[in-house]
């Protein structure tokens, strides 16, 4: 038995006999009331999503999943394809199951896949990942007086992120995969 305080993205809870993976969560303190954790959870079998709020002092059942190191191979019509680095088994995950984490996937990268009964149910991205800037405005010295400190940059896998104004194309950056924000130079 566990506390709702342990809830994180990718954690799986058992509710009403089913397994649900946490896709979003937030701690809420409705001032002058108890403390709560509100989460969006997705049914592992039928992908139905719902919102739940637990009291922090409740107990919930967190189900330990198998977490396998896999290599992300490529995407095709079956979805995103992964290969188990140890056994060479392959499995694929649908676009729906991967959700917005897809934007960080790089072919060939190692990634932890959360597996239940031999079925992949969620991806556990490293909290920080490196990407190379492939497109951005020329580097300028930070103009802190007028407050222009960031600019948009496109990275090698395709998404855009706000970076400091002095960054150049070709530079490597660290991105927080939970928020999508620039962290620092790699």
């Amino acid at each position, binding site marked *: 038995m566990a506390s709702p305080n342990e809830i994180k993205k990718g954690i799986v809870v058992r*509710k009403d006999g089913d397994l649900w993976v946490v896709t979003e969560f*937030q*701690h*809420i*303190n*409705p*001032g*002058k*009331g*108890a*403390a*709560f954790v*509100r989460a969006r959870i997705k049914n592992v079998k039928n992908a139905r999503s*719902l*919102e*739940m*709020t*637990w*009291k922090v*002092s*409740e*107990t*919930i059942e967190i189900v330990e999943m198998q977490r396998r190191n896999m290599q992300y191979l490529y995407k095709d019509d079956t979805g995103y394809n992964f290969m188990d680095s140890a056994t060479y088994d392959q499995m694929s995950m649908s676009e729906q199951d991967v959700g917005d984490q897809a934007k960080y996937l790089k072919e060939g990268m190692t990634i932890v896949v959360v597996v239940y009964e031999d079925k992949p149910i969620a991806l556990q991205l490293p909290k920080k990942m490196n990407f190379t800037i492939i497109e951005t405005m020329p580097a300028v010295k930070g103009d*802190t*007086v*007028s*407050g*222009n*400190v*960031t600019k948009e940059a496109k990275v090698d896998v395709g998404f855009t992120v706000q970076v400091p104004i002095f960054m150049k194309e070709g530079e490597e950056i660290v991105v927080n995969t939970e928020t999508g924000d620039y962290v620092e130079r790699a």
Partner: protein
Amino acid sequence: MNQEKVRARSEIVKLIRAWFDQCGFLEVHTPRLVGLPGQEPHLEPFWTEVVISNAKGEGRRAKSDAALITSPEYAMKKLLAEGMDKIYDLGPCFRNNEPWDGTHDPEFLMLEWYRRDAGLNEIMEDTESMIRFVAKESKNVILREVGATKDLPIGISAESFRRITMEAAFCEYLNVNLSSLLEDKQALVDLAISLDQTVGDEDSWDDIFFKIFLTHIEPRLGEQPTFLYRYPASMAALARRSEDDPRYAERVELYIGPFELANGFAELADPDEQRERFAEERELRSKLGKKTWSIDERLLSALPKMGNAAGIAFGVDRLVMLLTGSKSINDILPFSARERFDI
């Protein structure tokens, strides 16, 4: 640090003060460091110790526990009791053990103001006028007249802020008659379960209410600027009961976009009920293994002299976030919590 936004925050604070000053309010600077802070079971004050350098040898205590305030409420109510009216306090407040989720910092700017002989209507009018004044006069905000959108930012449009009672909110968002559930815990439990919530044996009526409210109503309230008022009396213990329906009490919260910006009350001035409430809070703190301290007797004695006052606590940093289109409180602070503390 984003200098543009730090400037915006400075300007917004000045504009807030200008609005209150021109409305005849007096700015009071109540203490940040006190012996008896608020006892809310889920707020954690920062504690230190105050020491007198020359008290030894006089047979007096030379030191005492001291805490940073989580809100200036107690001091302001004491001032009201002294006969002051239309007072505001804008300064830092401190709360420990909060989630660092982008909308909290252990130190934040709080604005509280109080009126004698007033109720929620006056407070709601003050709040809306003040926000509109600031949004209009600021040279730094980017959102003046934008309509509601799905993500941040939500703007302040020309349309008046929506005012909706908790009862009407349950009707609108869940098609449920809240009043019929106030005395019927089982029906509330059934509703919660039908809405996919878990209900434990230890859950109080309030707990179950919040599970429903926080899941299905609260996230949607801010789609347009909204005052949510008239809460079930049990969760507004310090508010006066609503005159036309004593099952509800005069508490109000303001939601704009993803933020809860303010929490206000038509204040209850009954020291006996207040003492009981304090005792309950203290007991709950103890049960949760948290530090406890004495009840503020001076506040209790002051209450009867407060009359029918109304007051509200308002998150200035969140208003700044809203008006500058910022997703995180760290965008508007010169130094974020992680920059100040090695965590």
